[in-house]
């Protein structure tokens, strides 16, 4: 269990860094061009590491199903929805909704055992855990917002 959590923490730290880097790119370039750069480099990196670890095995796609070829659509959906949400709402509200929705949907997929997941029964424990985490996001995000407004006024 610990190993799984460590992997999730690594992924989360890199996602956090990537968000900062991508927004720096987005300051100068449009969102479609940013999308192309981010996904293009993601592809190059995955392909290189895949070749390194798997060699020729990387090209052996035995149990390929048709919808796997369209999974990239989800990635474009992520970038588009998050960017549009951020454009229309304040960053604090937008990101809080994104994070809460991520967690809520995870709980839903886990409890119905979607896409070959082992179903995790939805109990009071799950509900409590997720509500406390969402509460934590709100405390974290909304107090941060006040702080930045105060420092803007001060400067």
């Amino acid at each position, binding site marked *: 269990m610990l190993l799984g959590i460590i992997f999730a923490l690594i992924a989360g730290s890199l996602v*956090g860094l990537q968000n900062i880097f991508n927004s720096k790119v987005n300051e100068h370039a449009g969102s479609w061009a940013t999308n192309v750069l981010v996904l*293009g480099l993601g592809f190059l990196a995955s392909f290189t*590491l895949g070749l390194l670890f798997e060699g020729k095995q*990387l090209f052996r796609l035995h149990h390929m199903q048709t919808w*796997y070829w369209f999974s990239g659509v989800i990635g474009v959906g992520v970038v588009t929805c998050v960017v549009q949400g951020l454009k229309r709402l304040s960053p604090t509200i937008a990101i809080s909704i994104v994070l809460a*929705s991520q*967690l809520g949907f995870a709980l839903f997929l886990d409890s119905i055992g979607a896409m070959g997941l082992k179903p995790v029964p939805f109990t009071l424990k799950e509900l409590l855990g997720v509500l406390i985490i969402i509460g934590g996001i709100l405390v974290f995000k909304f107090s941060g917002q006040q702080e930045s407004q105060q420092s803007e006024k001060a400067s």
Partner: protein
Amino acid sequence: MKGILFALFGGIFITLQGVANSRISQDIGTWQAATITQMTGFILAVVLMVSFRDRTWQNFKRVKPMYLFGGTFAAVVIFSNVTAIHKVGVTLTISALLIAQLSVAFLTDTCGWFGVTKQRMRLPQFIGIGMMVAGVLILSM
């Protein structure tokens, strides 16, 4: 209202991406799944960029070179995410991922990394992260 819907679907897509990758990797392997999802996403993004006539890639040279390489993290992100989902399920994976993500944002703000305006650490942020860690502990019990 439209903004709220976009943000909601943004979150749903992020989770869906992890689960879809984890499903695909069971059949064809994790690196294969990462390569294919990034490749097809890249192709779609190129098509959209061309059809919306976005020529702003010319401005990439004005971005500090380091920031251009954020995309490469995706390989490690997908591998770690898929491995975590296989080991501890979606809810716990996403919860731990959120904590790490917010901690990086918090450290960036308080240390003023990457040219971000430095902000003082305040009690509510510690309480927020504390609550999130408590929630993850409850989920993993």
